[in-house]
């Protein structure tokens, strides 16, 4: 289910907020109200495969953290799988670019990057995608146009606008997708970037992954406008609120957003309503919400169970689904083995890659 900013919901709040502006708003072109994506059976199978891969990978990462193989900060994507998978399935790899914050493992997997080199980065090994020097929060694949992996909350929004700027400057037809959370949505630089992105009509989709909690602070406790899809309105950036637990809704909204951006209308904002099952990071006991709340979300809205239902409706058998599950378990186990047994970086690596050139 997707909810665009126009026509405005006739809520008392919206009317009270800006009765006079409504007329002007209606004169502006707006994106169409998105519809759920009509996926083929093969596409559904691929969505399922990717989402299960992310889930099992993250569970394994959590285990390895507990065993001390992974250190520092480690932010798991469990519960939010439909967002990265739904959006990135609509992009053209090698043409469109993606940038996100530190909760980045899922986005990398959804972009088809080898689970082994991701897991080896988590364990800080030489074979890691950043040669062990980045860690969980700092992973990149220029080859896939995946630009990180950024640890400063909100920084990826300005950097993403810069990637969008480069797409436009080069005229390569690419679109940048910049993901950020409901917490980052309160950072000042996000709005500096919104302003310039719309002013210069940059080809960028801003995606707020609203998982309801910025670390331990709920959206309501941190945001005066908690309907985050409206956060671009004063910059004339249209926003669409999307059920981020439903991969077909996510994909459908992304198609609409891509159309909007590719037609030269400038940026668009997608608010993905989602939920993380685990704590903010591995060291978060998540005391700010009840066990029942998490369980209810798992029971009623789990994105993987959702796709499973679509698969069964499409005539895929339980056995076929189990085969996928088994295959994924093998892939993840191999990635974990690889990450545990790969050597740590050579000590000389300490001094490499500080600068590119010799001076």
């Amino acid at each position, binding site marked *: 289910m997707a909810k665009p900013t126009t026509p405005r919901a006739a809520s008392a709040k919206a009317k009270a907020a800006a009765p006079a502006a409504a007329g002007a708003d209606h004169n502006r072109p707006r994106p169409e109200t998105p519809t759920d994506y009509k996926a083929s059976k093969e596409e559904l199978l691929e969505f399922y495969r990717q989402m299960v891969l992310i889930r099992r990978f993250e569970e394994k990462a959590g285990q390895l953290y507990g065993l001390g193989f992974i250190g520092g900060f480690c932010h798991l994507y469990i519960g939010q799988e439909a967002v990265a998978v739904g959006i990135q399935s609509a992009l053209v790899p090698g043409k469109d670019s993606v940038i996100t914050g530190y909760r980045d493992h899922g986005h990398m997997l959804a972009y088809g990057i080898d689970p082994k080199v991701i897991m080896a980065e988590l364990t800080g090994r030489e074979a890691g995608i950043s040669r062990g020097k980045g860690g969980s929060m700092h992973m990149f694949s220029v080859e896939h146009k995946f630009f990180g992996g950024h640890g400063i909350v909100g920084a990826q929004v300005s950097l993403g606008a*810069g990637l969008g700027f480069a797409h436009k400057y080069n005229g390569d037809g690419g679109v940048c997708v910049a993901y950020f959370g409901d917490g980052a949505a309160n950072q000042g630089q996000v709005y500096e*970037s919104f302003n310039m992105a719309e002013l210069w009509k940059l080809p960028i989709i801003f995606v707020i992954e609203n998982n309801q909690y910025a670390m331990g602070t709920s959206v309501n406790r941190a945001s005066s406008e908690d309907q985050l899809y409206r956060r671009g309105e004063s910059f004339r950036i249209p926003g669409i609120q999307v059920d981020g637990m439903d991969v077909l809704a996510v994909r459908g909204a992304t198609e609409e957003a891509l159309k909007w951006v590719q037609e030269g209308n400038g940026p668009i904002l997608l608010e993905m309503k989602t939920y993380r099952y685990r704590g903010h990071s591995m060291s978060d006991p998540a005391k700010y919400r009840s066990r029942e709340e998490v369980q209810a979300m798992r029971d009623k809205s789990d994105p993987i169970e959702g796709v499973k239902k679509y698969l069964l409706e499409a005539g895929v058998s339980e056995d076929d689904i189990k085969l996928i599950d088994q295959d994924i378990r093998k892939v993840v186990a191999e990635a974990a083995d690889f990450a545990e047994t790969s050597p740590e970086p050579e000590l000389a690596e300490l001094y490499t890659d500080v600068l*590119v050139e010799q001076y």
Partner: protein
Amino acid sequence: MGIEIKMPALSPTMEEGTLAKWLVKEGDEVKSGDILAEIETDKATMEFEAVDEGQIGKILIAEGSEGVKVGTVIATMAGEGGEEAPAPAPKAAEAPKADAEAPKKAESGTSKLASEARATVQDPDLPEGTEFVKTTVREALRDAMAEEMRKDERVFVMGEEVAEYQGAYKVTQGLLDEFGDKRVIDTPITEYGFAGIGAGAAMGGLRPVIEFMTFNFAMQAIDHIINSAAKTNYMSGGQMRCPIVFRGPNGAASRVGAQHSQNYGPWYAAVPGLIVIAPYDAADAKGLLKAAIRSTDPVVFLENELLYGRSFDVPKVDDYVLPIGKARIMRPGKDVTLVSYSIGVGLALDAAATLAEEGIDAEVIDLRTLRPLDTATVLESLKKTNRLVVVEEGWPTCSIASEIAAVVMEQGFDDLDAPVLRVTNEDVPLPYAANLEKLALIDAARVVAAAKKVCYK
């Protein structure tokens, strides 16, 4: 005689200007707010308005006159009520900053800060018979950007007032006309945002030159300079390049107070992953900015507003590019080494000239690049002179001067015949009052005193 109309100061650092055009003639009646003349400063052409009503008497400076010093009487005016009326004292000065009222003009500490002192030796890498062209630092910087933009489509310039306004300090003058608004981009006042957009564009394969109106405002953006630009290559195991230049004026300007007067050289020089350049003369400004734009690494390029209008000889060479990370001996000497960078180099050269009269032969080194620091050139010089003074327009604590002192102690201890001395600004926020500002900033006399001290003279 009625009111004297004086050449106004139209910016904090203006000392002289061109009287481009008179818009009134002798005998014209003018009233307050009428435009009397157009005056060209090194930054912009400004309209000069009348403050008082009256009749223009004599025009004393003809239009087209260049180099008219601030405070020069450029015309006379009969005050309200006719030629005979005595000029009312409070209205005596046309320009608020001229000194008709005050018997003595307050002298800024920066008036002696910007020297035009030249290197006494030619760059040894330049071939014999190289032709030189007198160029301001401002023009040299612009030429560097324009040349690199002609050469490489990926290079673009972005910042506040860089395009239509032609640069807040006129450094980007003419670039919009030549390269258009795709490549010369005015931003809103939003340093954090456009520093991030620049860094992202660099990651996306472009070569941005990001201008900060001054580096004081770059503190808003320092997160992207350090966390995004400087560290990404390392964090990505060498995958993610960020070839970007952050440039703009740095250091004390003139009477602009504490928030607009700071040297960030030591701040950025502390960060691995950055290149930090701070040139003194126009040739270095050009050659090093070109090198900075070509570098695959992120560069912080620190200019100095007080030097923008200073002229130096720039070699007339096709594609004048200098090596990053190499200091330059500006004046060879054998008795004491004076190490400096940016605006301090001029003071060191002035001090060396004074010292020479007193029989002390000082060697002056311009570091030019603050990171990586060319310690080899400093240590080599110390071997010869055995005495060293660091001259830095900036605070003393955790400064480039501190760093040089530490390096010299660690690696040149046996060559020292005296302790290393630091000549730096006072350890206070820069005050506004002219006398205090003067007291807080370095000057050549302090450099001379320190040099004599290490020579035990």
